[in-house]
């Protein structure tokens, strides 16, 4: 708990070096542990501080940018093993909450996937163009704001209709809060948090592919910034 509060205030200061030190001191079992139990709650704490009127949206932007930097540093590993699989990740048009998406991207990378992280707010036409030429096995989407939900169905259906029929994953803060099934296409896999994502990935690699089932062990929401 103490780590979380400390990290949240460091992120709000915008001090990337201190944030890195703080993460190094955290007794992590795995990278997923750092994401799920340190960075995600720290960013949730930042959101909470806004609700308590202790910080402004501008402060949140700074914390996000600092967290982004730390994530890039955490994800950097010079020798990656290759599984030969490809995954691309993007946020819906207008969606700026990308930190969780970036974490998922790096979990895939860690498992030897070749990934393309296309970041926040990507219009559908660009995403489709990219998917057609790059031909990924998995397309990961993230949504954090309720007003972007109406667009979700278009994205999910367009990706599902691609010639290679990639697996379409959906995460984001809302996936942890609400049942997003009505906004997806039939095959969309909804992942509520990082452990669930990792579990899905394991199933996929052992051949379970799209219909890997899950227990309802989801705790906190993910893909959040």
């Amino acid at each position: 708990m103490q780590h979380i509060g400390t990290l949240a205030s460091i992120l709000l200061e915008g001090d990337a070096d201190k944030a890195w030190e703080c993460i190094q001191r955290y007794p992590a079992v795995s990278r997923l542990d750092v994401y799920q139990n340190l960075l995600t709650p720290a960013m949730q704490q930042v959101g909470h501080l806004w609700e308590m009127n202790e910080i402004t949206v501008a402060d949140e932007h700074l914390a996000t940018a600092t967290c982004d930097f730390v994530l890039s540093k955490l994800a950097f590993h010079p020798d990656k093993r290759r599984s030969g699989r490809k995954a691309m990740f993007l946020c819906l048009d207008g969606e700026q909450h990308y930190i969780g998406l970036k974490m998922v991207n790096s979990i895939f990378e860690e498992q030897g996937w070749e990934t393309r992280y296309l970041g926040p707010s990507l219009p559908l036409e660009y995403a489709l163009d990219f998917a057609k030429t790059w031909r990924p096995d998995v397309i990961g989407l993230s949504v954090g704001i309720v007003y972007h939900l109406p667009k979700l169905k278009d994205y999910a259906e367009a990706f599902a209709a691609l010639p290679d029929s990639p697996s379409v994953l959906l995460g984001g803060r809302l996936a942890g809060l609400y049942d997003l099934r009505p906004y997806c296409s039939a095959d969309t896999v909804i992942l509520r948090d990082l452990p669930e994502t990792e579990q899905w990935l394991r199933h996929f690699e052992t051949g379970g592919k799209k219909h890997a089932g899950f227990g309802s062990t989801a705790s906190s929401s993910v893909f959040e910034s």
Partner: protein
Amino acid sequence: MQDLDLPLPLPYLRVDREGKITGSSALAQERFDLSKGHINSIIDEESIKKLSQFRWVSGLDSVKFELNMKTKDRALALFDVHLQWDLDDHANMILLPKDSANEKLTQKLMAIQHRLAETDFELLEKKEELEQVLRRLDELSGPFIPLSGELCMIPLFGDITADKINTISESCLQSVFKGNYEIILFDLTAVGEVRTDGVEKFIQLVKTLSFMTGNVIKLIGIKPDLAKVLNHYHLEQWVEFNHSLEQELRVYLNH
């Protein structure tokens, strides 16, 4: 609800303890859909909790906080809200739109992030290109040269690395297997630096070839430093060290 005729430059709302809107300025009516008459109807759902903590603030000091609100044009717009309770127990709220002030900054930040991400991609693509080039170079650094029906030669160029030997091994083993060669020469004259993992792979290759042909493998053009390294591995059983290609070829030509 009471309309206020004051020409206020910012939207103004008056709200009672229950959240009912009891007064509004012209600008507030222009910006917001006030038809429901309740403050919660023009606030983003996730900001309602935030506002409610100010519902019980007492005293006459004004407070300032940010809220996400629903305007007629936008489903989500950030406002600085200045709130003060009056003696009639009503909250007076002035709403200062914030996005315009932040927008330029946010856009710049996004543009920079976008550029970083793009640069990252370009680097990634270049890295992949480079890896291919290196692999191609490795392939070309150990050409297989058949000299006669029984004799073939593989000159190695450049540094001996594990990657390079791995790359060469595959085609080399196949060629030897297909051609039924008996004598294999490795020319190491053009070898640069030698890495430990590279040497180990090379020795593996040499041993495999020796098994396949049933003969010792001949190494020529060995420089003193490489000789020192190879000496550690006790290869007498597998290889024969010869001085130069010329000497070696003379043996076969006279044969």
